[in-house]
């Protein structure tokens, strides 16, 4: 930080300017910031941060003038999309299959056996926790799962919601209700969990995922409802 650059109108260095801009964007990382918190991360450039803060200012003032903050809302949604593009560019995304598999639906949903799956690192109390930094194994959970049995081990997302109510990722109560109402045929006895932070998905593709698919097929499951986090 010895090199003087044109950081501001005084003797401020570029690094100090970036630090100040990031401080201006400090946030509690609560759900309101779920898709925007990355603005405060070191990867952002001065140009991006300046553009964002200036846009906030312009949209806030014009919104107040018009008594209409829809412009502000569009602005924030656009930046959420930009953050998504940034995350996507930086993440090691496994390539999809060469072609998308297809299983046509040949019966009404009300006659289907439906299985629930998730990638939220959810497991049942007493089972072996996932390794939170890299784990391509899976866990089974019973359809009788109660909230007080819910445990999570996952190094890559905010799972406070799951600890409060598992249904926001694994909607087991909702599907039991749907079964009672006859909207679906049967909720399958066993649910399957993965832990979605898997830097090298080779083992997942070769072993764990096909094994779960094999079990579901063998059990006569018609549809799988998989929620990712």
């Amino acid at each position, binding site marked *: 930080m010895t090199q003087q650059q044109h950081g501001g109108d005084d003797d401020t260095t570029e690094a100090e300017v970036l630090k100040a801009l990031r401080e201006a964007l400090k946030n509690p990382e609560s*759900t*309101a910031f*779920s*898709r925007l918190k990355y603005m405060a991360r070191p990867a952002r450039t001065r140009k991006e941060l300046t553009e964002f803060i200036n846009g906030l200012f312009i949209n806030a003032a014009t919104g107040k003038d018009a008594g209409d903050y829809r412009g502000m809302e569009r602005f924030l949604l656009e930046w*959420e999309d930009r953050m*998504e*593009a940034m*995350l*996507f560019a930086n993440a090691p*995304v*496994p*390539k*999809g*299959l060469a*072609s*998308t*598999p*297809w*299983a046509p*639906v040949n019966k*009404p*949903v009300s006659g289907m056996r439906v299985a629930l799956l998730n990638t*939220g690192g959810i497991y049942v109390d007493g089972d072996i926790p996932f390794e939170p930094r890299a784990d391509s194994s899976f866990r089974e959970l019973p359809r009788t799962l109660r909230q007080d049995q819910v445990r999570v081990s996952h190094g890559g*997302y*905010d*799972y*406070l*919601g*799951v600890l*409060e*109510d598992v*249904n*926001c*990722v694994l*909607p087991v*109560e*909702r*599907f039991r*209700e*749907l079964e009672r*109402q006859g*909207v*679906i045929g049967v909720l399958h006895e066993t649910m399957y969990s993965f832990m979605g932070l898997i830097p090298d998905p080779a083992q997942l593709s070769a072993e764990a995922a096909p094994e779960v698919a094999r079990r579901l097929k063998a059990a006569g499951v018609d*549809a799988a*409802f*998989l*929620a*990712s*986090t």
Partner: protein
Amino acid sequence: MMFKRYADELSPPRSVVTRFPFGRPLGEPSKPDQHRVIIDDALRFLAEAREPGQVLELPYLWRREDFAAILDARGARQLAE
């Protein structure tokens, strides 16, 4: 799914994208009506999708919709016992 781009790239047979905070794909904790609307849309899509790789992007904003009213309008709210 939480990301439209992942849905496009990974291309599962059918995917539904919700623009909710990460870690809450079905909606807020303890908001069963919200979960029900998302599931209802997904099950309908399951029955209606005709070609592999289709992606359904749901329009709902977090905490900004009246999910009970949406269910009522669909006649899908006999639960809530």
